[in-house]
């Protein structure tokens, strides 16, 4: 945790510096007669962010924050495993949306999580991961008229059939 605290602060300080640099594309000063320029607001706020990061680093050095005293690892073995399996699962889920459509990706993700991570029964897992996207389809497309991504063209026949039902 102790190392992580400093690394996080360092990373956020870099982010603040980047934001400050990016803000300078517009005037950051006080323009006489018109008030602050377009970059002033984000620039000075990013500057405060940077100062906060420095304060966090000082607190780290003084050891006042709980994280800077803790010698526990940021994530233990189980922590890393769950982050990779769950976080990675979400990333794959979102990536799949553009390929097999929102609803297809939902079905795959639910099945993966409930069956593989959650270790529930096969029938229950299948039932939930198939019923949920269908229900969501009728809710979003039918009731709310919000079109979700339908993925690559090969999903078209399925969607054309479903649209035939709801319209």
């Amino acid at each position, binding site marked *: 945790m102790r190392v992580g605290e400093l690394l996080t602060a360092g990373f956020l300080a870099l982010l603040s510096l980047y934001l400050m640099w990016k803000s300078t594309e517009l005037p950051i000063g006080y323009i006489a007669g018109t008030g602050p320029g377009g970059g002033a607001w984000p620039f000075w706020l990013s500057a405060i962010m940077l100062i906060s990061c420095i304060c966090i680093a000082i607190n780290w050095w003084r050891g006042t924050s709980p994280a800077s005293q803790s010698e526990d690892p940021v994530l233990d073995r189980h922590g890393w495993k769950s982050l990779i399996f769950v976080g990675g699962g979400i990333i794959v889920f979102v990536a799949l949306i553009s390929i097999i459509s929102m609803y297809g990706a939902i079905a795959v993700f639910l099945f993966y999580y409930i069956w593989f991570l959650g270790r529930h029964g096969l029938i229950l897992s299948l039932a939930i991961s198939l019923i949920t996207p269908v229900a969501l389809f009728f809710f979003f497309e039918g009731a709310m*008229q*919000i*079109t979700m991504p*339908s993925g690559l063209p090969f999903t078209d026949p399925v*969607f*054309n059939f479903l649209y035939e039902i709801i*319209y």
Partner: protein
Amino acid sequence: MNLTKRMLMSMAGAALMFAAPMQAVAQDWQPRKPIDFVIMAGAGGGADQIARFIQAVAEQEDLTTRPLVPNNKGGGSGAEALIHVSTASDPDHTILVTLNSFFTTPLRQQNLGIDIQTFTPVAMMGVDPFVLWVHKDSGITTFEEYVAKVQEMDGEFVMGGTGAGQEDSIVIAYMSGAYDLDIKYIPYDGGGAVAKDLAGQQIMATVNNPAEAKGFYEAGDFVPLLAFSDERMPAYPDVPTIKEMGHDFSYYNQRAIVGAPGMSEEAAAYYQDLFTQVYESEQWQGYLTSESLSPLWMDAAEQRDYWALQVENHQALLAALGE
């Protein structure tokens, strides 16, 4: 600076003749899924109201087999909408309701890489004129008094609008140049906010579409001083135009529908037919009259020419603004 509306008006008759054969083509293609009806402005503005009105007419008359789904993408003066439409995965089901930021945004932000000529012309539903308004308590009743007042206040006269490079700022910039006015211009995030602050007298004057100021005008709060149309507007017969004042200038906000780049010909024909029906509907014609829009019907080829002309005009106007 004349946007040659009349010339285009005369061509409008020809356009209607094209509409008939189109109908035959249109039968071949039908939308298979909901149509992404992208709006180049946030919810509640003039463009949004028009889009929703069109959607309502299509729904009411049962003109489409799949619904038009309004999708507000107003961010970045319409840049958001232009990017969304030009990168649409399914151009046959993506159409865009435009205003003049269709011309100005790609000009002002070359890095977007948007070439509007790649878009597919669908329909020109009408053009929205601009009018100069003041609050009734200001005591100003004519444009001459307005000019005198602005000059007297010497840089302290406050006007509000929707921002640098936006339609109203172009008009104000032209007017300031023509009459040597020094105006303090406050940018707002939408026409509604501008109208509200004129009603509350936070600002002293605005240039706005009649649709956005109409409620306050009818209540007697706003006084129209000058119209930026080619001819006097039927709803405001006593309001002179800037042309009468001897300046060859008129400015309109376009209310047009365009298709995504890469739309198939069949789909384009379908939408052209669809919006011809909307355009000819009683409701739309009534809307044109009640909201003081001018009709400006054009076929696809004319629309492309109109775009080229507008890009040229706006280039000159923006250059004059110092953009």
